[in-house]
């Protein structure tokens, strides 16, 4: 196997293993569009990085973290539903990014690269980042798992029972923002948001506990990476989209499985 393919495989699997558990919470909390919102803000991050003369990735991460903070603050007002807030943030961030880039005439941005990323261009350094950062992210998630789950089930009940609801939620949001921003360059907007949502949705069928769902989502995501890259190699299709299609195919396949008899007493 070629080296670049091996790196793509390892990198993709690494992202999928982190995206599964995080994505489960994204699905449980009905925040599927949070990923898109952050992704849309990436352009603004590119422009910011350029203007400030800092690394593009740092610019993207800064904008994503800022957006997560704004969202948490707006959610606490409880005036508008989260999907509405995400819609507002998403489109204004995208438009701000496009306008900012139009002003910066010397800056040329390859939009397609941000949409699909280039998983085949993953370097060895990228791999260290994926596995090091991914492990740190999973450790943080494990640390806040119980309180975050309690908050997800019933926020006020958790608060009365002594869970520091706001702090836990903030850690979770910043974690997601960081992961998406970091993965953006490596695997692209399309792939990271799909790896968050689709494997988690597919895993629901097998799971009888939250932890089972998180683990199954990680495995299904890894399987989608392997299948997608194989298809891409076999039929010379673009790698990122092929992985998304493989994930969707797995989801469809699992959904079509006959249901086991549900035990009810």
């Amino acid at each position, binding site marked *: 196997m070629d080296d670049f393919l091996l790196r793509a495989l390892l990198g993709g699997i690494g992202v999928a293993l982190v995206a599964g558990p995080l994505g489960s919470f994204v699905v449980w909390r*009905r925040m599927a569009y949070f990923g898109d919102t952050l992704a849309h803000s990436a352009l603004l991050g590119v422009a910011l990085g350029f203007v400030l003369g800092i690394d593009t990735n740092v610019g993207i991460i800064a904008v994503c973290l800022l957006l997560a903070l704004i969202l948490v603050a707006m959610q606490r007002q409880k005036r508008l539903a989260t999907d509405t807030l995400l819609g507002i943030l998403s489109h204004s961030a995208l438009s701000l990014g496009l306008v900012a880039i139009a002003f910066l005439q010397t800056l040329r941005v390859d939009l397609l690269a941000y949409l699909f990323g280039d998983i085949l261009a993953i370097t060895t350094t990228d791999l260290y980042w994926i596995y090091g950062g991914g492990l740190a992210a999973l450790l943080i998630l494990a640390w806040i798992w119980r309180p975050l789950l309690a908050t997800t089930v019933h926020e006020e009940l958790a608060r009365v029972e002594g869970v520091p609801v706001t702090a836990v939620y903030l850690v979770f949001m910043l974690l997601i923002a960081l992961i998406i921003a970091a993965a953006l360059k490596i695997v692209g907007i399309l792939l990271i948001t799909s790896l968050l949502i689709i494997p988690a949705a597919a895993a629901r069928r097998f799971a009888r506990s939250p932890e089972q769902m998180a683990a199954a989502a990680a495995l299904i995501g890894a399987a989608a990476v392997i299948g997608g890259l194989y298809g891409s190699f076999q039929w010379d299709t673009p790698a990122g989209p092929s992985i998304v299609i493989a994930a969707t195919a797995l989801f469809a396949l699992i959904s079509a499985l006959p249901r086991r008899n549900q035990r009810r007493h």
Partner: protein
Amino acid sequence: MNATASLSEILAQVQDVEVRFGGSAVLERVSLTVRRGEIVTLIGPNGSGKSTLVRTLLGLIRPDRGRVFIHPGIRIGYMPQRLQVDPVLPLSVRRFLTLGVRATLPQVLTALEEVGAAHVVDRPIQDVSGGELQRVLLARALLREPDLLVLDEPVQGVDVNGQHELYELISRIRTQRGCGILMVSHDLHLVMAATDHVVCLNRHVCCAGRPETVSRDPAYLALFGPTVARGLAFYQHRHDHLHGPDGILRPAAARPHQRGHSHDG
């Protein structure tokens, strides 16, 4: 104030509390005390601020005026009015019960047996009936071994026999555990046997005292109407309206009227 009750320790107290939502007062100068070993019941029509008062006492809402006191170091068991767990989250009753406190399976089963719901322990929380869910929520509150139990409409969705059973159970919990209980109820007659102190609320405290006294209080009669107050079978329909200041009936779902009721009492 009752002389014997004032000897016992005050667990929670709100004093002259005022809560406004968007400019209109939901609670005006409301005071309430819960002592150890005492059952206090809040009654009032829909939209009278019962849940708001409970949530203010729990610290979930910050009052615009007045004081909230919770005895330092006490454990609170809270049963919220509503719980809806998204079907996408795989969660068994057993797991739900251990979200608030770490408990072993025997402890979980004991708590469920106490509320008469041991048979649902392994069922997905989304699959239990409304009445069973109320019992499960009560079990979660009990598992915390609370000093203060706060129950927001504990019998909703429970059939009439079950309602009596639950109120008896709540009364027994108080006797056995000696905790203080604050509960919200829709009607006085069902809770009469199970409560020591009744607070009749309609944005302000209309009247308060022992259940027999309140049931004859002119303010209580004015609020619920004589038919309801006598506890006839069709009383539940009467809860769907409020009396406007002009005497015209208004649906309870509408915004509260600008001026309070005028009571003779």
